[in-house]
């Protein structure tokens, strides 16, 4: 047990911190979840990722031959942590960095790796994820978007939904049905689709927050080269499942919860209730302490998992709870803040009397979206029970 980073790691952290203080875009990027996503915004967002990459702070653990630095997981964790602490803008290429890139490194052909990985790092190509469909949400493997083989091409027909960033993406990693006769998990393939191909229509959906964050994507006889298949034909489910375990930004997300707690605490200190600060209200103090304990538990839980990663242990059941607990905790923090604001929590974020710069009404809604996206809490519990506890499948 040793909770300290080495001197070299601490020096690295300070270097990252100094770089971020100097270089974080001062305005106009938001946190990537909001803002008007026009062309100028997109260029600024890409420029920010490129700058970070050129400084050596993107995909540190990737192999050197594909633009990474083959570093141990600690360095990447330190960068993730500092990015959150510095309130750096969300990386526009994060789907490529977090999901597709590691998948290609494990499953891609040499040609695919050479073609796609460098442009993921520099944000020259932005990727979106084509998984959910109108009829296939939690039951993802029932997806029906069809890809038929014609010569050396796939011809794709169907529809994806909740596709974040499709409106500005260049490429999509996509699950399609290539064998409709096979059992549902065995007829799916993982393919890479150029979003500028004729036959693709992107239609924005407005989220409950009022923003345009995700889309419907329609495919009408879209031609995709056969060489864009990742892994084997009809084995896309295995490839997609491997991707699910690539998201290991635990320290960063724990820091995010810590920041939200600190912001909630400051809010509660500033709110007067019954002639005293809300922090002195015995009931609300209980709630604050309870939330702080949970935030601290997740921070330590992240350190434990980073330690396992350094020790080369495969993640077990403890990693299956990250999404469930982390997203619900963030929503609980925001809900507590809404209650703390009293009457003012009735106000939309852009009302001039909204407290705390209108941060919480948006955060409260957006955090619930994250409880749903990427597998709802109910689905997470099924995964914990079936894969973690080996309880029998009912389906």
């Amino acid at each position, binding site marked *: *047990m*040793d909770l300290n980073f*080495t001197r070299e790691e601490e020096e690295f952290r300070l270097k990252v911190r100094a770089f971020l203080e100097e270089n974080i875009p001062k305005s106009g990027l938001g946190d990537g979840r909001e803002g008007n996503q026009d062309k100028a915004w997109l260029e600024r967002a890409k420029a920010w990722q490129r700058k970070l990459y050129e400084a050596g702070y993107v995909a540190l653990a990737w192999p050197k031959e594909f633009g990474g630095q083959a570093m141990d997981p600690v360095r990447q964790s330190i960068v993730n942590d500092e990015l959150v602490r510095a309130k750096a803008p969300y990386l526009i290429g994060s789907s490529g960095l977090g999901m597709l890139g590691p998948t290609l490194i494990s499953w891609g052909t040499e040609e695919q790796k050479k073609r796609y990985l460098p442009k993921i790092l520099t944000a020259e190509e932005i990727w979106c994820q084509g998984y959910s469909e109108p009829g296939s949400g939690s039951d993802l493997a029932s997806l029906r978007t069809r890809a038929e083989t014609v010569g050396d091409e796939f011809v794709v027909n169907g529809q994806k939904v909740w596709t974040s960033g499709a409106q500005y993406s260049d490429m999509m990693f996509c699950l399609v049905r290539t064998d409709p006769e096979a059992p549902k998990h065995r007829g799916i393939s993982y393919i890479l689709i150029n979003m500028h191909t004729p036959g693709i229509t992107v239609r924005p959906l407005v989220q409950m927050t009022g923003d345009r964050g995700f889309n419907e994507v329609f495919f009408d006889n879209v031609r995709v080269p056969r060489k864009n298949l990742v892994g084997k034909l009809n084995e896309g489910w295995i490839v997609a499942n491997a991707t699910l375990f690539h998201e290991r930004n635990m320290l960063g997300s724990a820091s995010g919860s810590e920041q939200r707690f600190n912001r909630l605490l400051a809010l509660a200190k500033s709110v007067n209730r019954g002639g005293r600060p809300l922090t002195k209200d015995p009931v609300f103090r209980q709630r604050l302490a309870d939330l*702080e304990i949970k935030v601290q538990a997740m921070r330590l839980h992240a350190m434990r998992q980073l*330690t396992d990663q350094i020790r080369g242990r495969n993640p077990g059941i403890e990693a299956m709870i990250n999404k469930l607990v982390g997203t619900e905790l963030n929503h609980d923090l925001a809900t507590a803040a809404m209650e703390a604001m009293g009457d003012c929590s009735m106000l939309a974020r852009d009302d001039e009397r909204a407290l705390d710069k209108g941060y919480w009404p948006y955060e409260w809604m957006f955090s619930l979206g994250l409880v749903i996206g990427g597998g709802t809490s109910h689905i997470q519990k099924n995964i914990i*029970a079936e894969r973690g506890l080996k309880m029998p499948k009912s389906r």
Partner: protein
Amino acid sequence: MDFGLSDEQLQLKQSARELLAAECSTAAVRKAMASEDGTLPELYREIAKLGWTGLIVPEKFGGAALGMLDMAVLLEEQGYAAMPGPFLFSSAVAAEAIIRGGSDEAREKWLGGIADGSAIGTVALAEDAGSIAVVAKKGGRLSGRGIFVPYANLADFIVVAARSEDGQVAMTLVETKAAGVTIRMLKNLDLTRRLAAVDFDDAAGASLSGGESLYRRLLDVGAVAIAADSLGGMQRALDMAVDYSKVREQFGKPIGSFQALKHAAAEIVADLEPARSLVWYAAYALDAIPSEASRAAAMAKARLCEVYSRATDRAVLMHGGIGFTWEHDIHLWFKRARFNESYLGSPAYHRERVAQLGGY
């Protein structure tokens, strides 16, 4: 950066799991429950030989001089087995009192015995200084009635939190055979532990040094010890409920195939895994991060005791009718969780401490 158990600690955990699976089955626990003293003397002798009882005792007194994280590992496994007996109170808390606050004479007299299992200590601590109900007169003579003390029936001595006539916390060691000490056994809800009410009637005791800071230290150590026991108990309740759900069939299927049960089990896991890190950190902080120790202990006690109770509640429910019977073992953990939640301060009490120590 290394936040996890060492290879030695993992080994200790594994060997404790195996030993207790063999020597502290629920049949053995029930034997202790039915006995007069509420312990398993042979098992106690065996764990003393293995060095458990002297785990944190300095080497010169025959101990292993290990740390609180090692102790937490053992306590977790004892919680998993619902091991009866005075170990937690004697070898974790009372031992710490003598190590930190005992005179040379007291250390000589008791630490060797605690380590080799021939002596047993226990503690009479109120959950907070304001609730201390024992008065210490000059020279360490104690008076106070009806003080709750775990395993006073087996103990050779009790470390008592008392208040001196000038209002200071006065930590005092009293031998149970001293004149003026009366022990009455209580009917304890948790059948895996014994609880007594002790009267001190001008009983002669010996002062320990450290006053309020020793008192706080013992509360922190006790809180972490109980949290570690809770961690193990929670894991056991989960294991039992999940195992049962795989064999019990209704509607023609194992009940574990129904989402209602899956989600109940998954929620226990979601409470359990982050809580494990709270226990590790709090135990480590007791030895290595003094400035954080009290707050970490309060966090661990608050969280672990809350989630242990919730987990046993759910685990009983997952068993259905059989879980409500005396014959089934799950109630042993259900009741042990209640003891843990109440002993040395409730979750609400410790959350308030977290708020105070956090400056809000």
